[in-house]
């Protein structure tokens, strides 16, 4: 895909770890926020234990860590509009989309209408989306 003379690549960030127990979730989020400055075609995937990163109602007061679950709501401001959640990962954990945060972006081309960033996707379909990427970062 080309936009003017700038080449736009498809970058995918694959998140597969639960938050807080390891640093992967927060590191991934920081990298995504930095990479968003380069106007590439970015998508995020939350699969396996990665789906826990988006759990609604996280409260880190007692564990004394930063509650970065609030930061996912800023992704829309950074023009990140494609957040894939793998359906089988939710099911294996007895979870559904209703257990996760709602993530939205404002569509510039549609009078700033609020739209859902979250895309529920099956494992089979996700495999195809991964295959279309230029670069996949694994966290």
């Amino acid at each position, binding site marked *: 895909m080309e936009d003017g003379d700038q080449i736009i690549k498809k970058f995918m960030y694959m998140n597969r770890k639960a938050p807080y127990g390891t640093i992967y979730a927060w590191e991934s989020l920081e990298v995504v*926020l930095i990479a*968003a*400055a380069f106007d590439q075609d970015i998508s995020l995937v939350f699969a396996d234990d990665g789906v826990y990163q988006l759990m609604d109602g996280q409260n880190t007061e007692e564990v004394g860590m930063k509650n970065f679950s609030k930061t996912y709501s*800023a992704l829309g*401001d950074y023009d990140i509009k494609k957040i894939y959640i793998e359906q089988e990962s939710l099911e294996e954990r007895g979870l559904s989309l209703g257990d996760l945060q709602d993530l939205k972006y404002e569509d510039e081309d549609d009078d700033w209408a609020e739209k859902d960033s979250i895309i529920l996707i099956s494992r089979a379909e996700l495999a195809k989306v991964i295959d279309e990427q230029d670069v996949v970062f694994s966290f």
Partner: protein
Amino acid sequence: MAIEVDGQSYETDEEGYLEDLNQWRPELGSAMAMADGAPLDENHWEVINFLREYYEEYQIAPAVRVLTKAIGKKLGKDKGTSKYLYELFPYGPAKQACKYAGLPKPTGCV
């Protein structure tokens, strides 16, 4: 490093960012700006307060591009330009204003 305000000392990192953001008070922002040789007016405070609200909500300081867009939406189109923000904060709106707001250096500051 540290900064002194009203006889109290506040820890900062080597670039002058406050170590403990809970210690922040407006007087600290003013003192940091005075030390940089440029006192703050109400236009500066508008941006600083906006940054603090953004941090409270999202737990990050926004990148310049995001800040510019959001300021335009909140405070009017004439203020949502990098020219306006760089006039207020010549060292970089995100970097300098975040410092005065007691926030960590913005994520994505390259």
